[in-house]
């Protein structure tokens, strides 16, 4: 947190969590209630309405999205709308669904820009889709490890997948989109993603399409399908793909031998002392 800024005006990006009324923390709520203006980017329209009841000046960032408009520009516009108010000396809150710093470019960029301009700016974490996923699917990322990638990034770049760990792919509904102007890609793109995953997983490997619940009257989506069926499975902007391990952990015998040698040396040193 920057506490040395001299200029008036500040920015806090807070996480609302995923579910209306369930996940918001006291710090995020306090920041919202005390703000001069609140900007909001959430995935559920009722959550947006909920926020509007918390503060008299809530401004949606939704109008920055548009068909055919590059998302890089959308995110720059989001940042700029928040910064305009910060520069005007106002206490600004950016309220984002989930965690404002997890797979979220605009909040990070906004905080960095505000700090570059000499304003106080920081982030308040929230309950992310990742957190809900672990709870709903009963996954402990510490047990076997867990890799997270943006789905298109996995396709655009050579990444090393560890098939003995969980693999979680974000924004799988727009996998392979290089235009950044679309809100969905079709089965042909997902076939390429499956082709990439088939380098490490069998075609019948079970994978789960996950969508966190955003209202307390709804349930999370947890559809388990065979990897080969992914191209024809309906996906949304907020769909996440969970790929469980297909191989057991591989012991690193060489490293274990070196550790054993260290242990022996320590034991010998202790005996001599």
């Amino acid at each position, binding site marked *: 947190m920057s506490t040395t800024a001299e200029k008036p005006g500040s920015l806090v990006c807070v996480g609302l969590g995923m579910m209306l*009324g*369930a996940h918001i923390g006291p710090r995020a709520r306090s920041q919202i209630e005390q703000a001069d203006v609140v900007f909001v980017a959430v995935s559920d*329209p*009722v959550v947006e309405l909920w926020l509007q009841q918390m503060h008299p000046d809530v401004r949606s960032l939704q109008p920055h999205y548009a068909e055919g408009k590059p998302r890089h520009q959308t995110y720059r516009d989001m940042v700029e709308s928040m910064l305009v108010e910060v520069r005007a000396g106002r206490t600004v809150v950016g309220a984002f669904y989930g965690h404002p710093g997890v797979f979220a470019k605009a*909040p990070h960029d906004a905080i960095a820009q505000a700090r570059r301009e000499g304003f106080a700016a920081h982030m308040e974490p929230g309950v992310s889709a990742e957190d809900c996923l672990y709870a709903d699917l009963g996954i402990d990322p510490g047990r076997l490890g867990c890799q997270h990638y*943006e789905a298109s990034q996995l396709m655009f770049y050579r990444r090393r997948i560890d098939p003995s760990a969980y693999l979680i792919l974000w*924004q799988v509904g727009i996998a392979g989109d290089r235009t950044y102007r679309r*809100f969905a890609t079709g089965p042909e793109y997902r076939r390429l993603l499956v082709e990439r995953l088939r380098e490490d997983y069998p075609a019948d490997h079970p994978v789960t399409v996950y969508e966190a619940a955003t*209202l307390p009257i709804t349930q999370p989506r947890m559809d388990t399908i065979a990897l080969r069926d992914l191209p024809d499975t309906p996906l949304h902007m907020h769909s996440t793909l969970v790929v469980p391990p297909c191989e057991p952990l591989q012991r690193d015998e060489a490293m274990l031998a070196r550790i054993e040698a260290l242990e022996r040396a320590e034991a010998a040193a202790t005996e001599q002392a």
Partner: protein
Amino acid sequence: MSIVQFLETLGGAPNQMSAANYAHAVEALGLDDAARDALLARDANAVNRLLGGRTVMRCMIATPD
């Protein structure tokens, strides 16, 4: 209590409203038939329509590079 306030209460304290008394709690809100039916059916789209929320929401805020 408004529908949004009801959802906020439900989200924050799910154990205080079991499945058995959910219907009773919805009835107690005194809503019109459409709103009551939407909540009883747990129909998020219908609830949103009745509240006048946005019909299209975009939620991507990350890019691959």
